[in-house]
């Protein structure tokens, strides 16, 4: 409309483009923000109430964001992992991917994961934060890898577990003929991602992250599927 066109001209006229003000210059009056490579969505799984609620109703989309500043606004105003009830999960996934095996973009994929069995010995809030920063800062994969779908933290009675979901298990996907990597190349990409995930978790050399395919886990009827790769 005319009104908004005039308004935007007026805004341009009064804004000096050369004057870049970041949140570090003025947190109440900054005019630029730091873009992320992807838009990310934070999800939460509520613990079951014990009244036969189905899992779909327990999985809630919290918020999507695409800047560094917005990430911190959310992180600084949300329940820390260490305060969550047992059987809660946070999931941070690329926008448009549901954090479920059944999502068409996850069904050929798998995950790297590590269980922290001594819950008191670690700072789960710092570990989860560092994994989220590695994801949104794009430190887990190279731009052309196109493997990382999201990261997840599970709060359970005997452990915390942090996972990283990948699009494939190293095999080319149906319908991607020609674009696909050989299994050896695909495996190398996954191992590289696993090593970066391990570094983000600040694990010792002898503490291994394990990779398994989602369908292996589904068929085993348990989340303890046989590990395909370790890093």
């Amino acid at each position, binding site marked *: 409309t005319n009104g908004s066109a005039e308004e935007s001209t007026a805004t341009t006229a009064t804004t000096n483009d050369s004057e*870049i003000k*970041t*949140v*570090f*210059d*003025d*947190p*109440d*009056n*900054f*005019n*630029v*923000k*730091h*873009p*992320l*490579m992807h838009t990310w969505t934070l999800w*939460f799984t*509520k*613990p079951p109430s014990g009244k036969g609620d189905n899992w779909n109703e327990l999985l*809630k*989309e*919290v*918020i999507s*964001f695409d*800047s*560094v*500043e*917005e*990430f*911190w*606004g*959310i*992180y*600084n*105003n*949300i*329940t820390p992992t260490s*305060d*969550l*009830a*047992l059987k*809660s999960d946070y999931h941070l996934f690329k926008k448009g991917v549901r954090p479920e095996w059944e999502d068409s973009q996850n069904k050929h994929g798998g995950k790297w994961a590590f269980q922290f069995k001594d819950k008191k010995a670690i700072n789960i809030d710092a570990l989860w934060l*560092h994994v989220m*920063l*590695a994801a*949104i*800062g*794009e*430190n887990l994969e190279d*731009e*052309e890898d196109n493997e990382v779908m999201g990261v997840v933290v599970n709060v359970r009675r005997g452990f915390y577990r942090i996972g990283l979901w990948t699009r494939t298990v190293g095999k080319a996907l149906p319908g991607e003929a020609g674009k696909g990597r050989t299994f050896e190349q695909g495996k190398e990409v996954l191992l590289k991602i696993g090593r970066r995930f391990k570094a983000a978790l600040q694990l010792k050399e002898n503490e291994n992250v394990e990779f398994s395919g989602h369908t292996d886990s589904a068929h085993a009827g348990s989340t303890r599927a046989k590990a395909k790769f370790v890093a």
Partner: protein
Amino acid sequence: ETTKPVEPAQPTAGMQALRSARFLQIRNEAVNYPDGIKSPNPALNQNSKSKGRQYDKEFLLQFQEVFKEKPSIDWDLKLKETVGDSTDSARPQSAR
């Protein structure tokens, strides 16, 4: 429920700044960060194919104490509907 604090009716200055700020073009714009603030690690964004949107942990952590605005004025309500009220859910449930 009558003692609930009243939500502010207007977004804060920080919320408005976040909404109206434009995206930096990291590869094309040189930012002079204030003294003591580290720039993103340039090595991460040297690849010519890169969009310049990779950030190292040390750079990202600098925002933690600087930007603490809630994402929206109705955030507390939204949080209650999704993550739940941490004050009840964090309590271990009685087995009775």
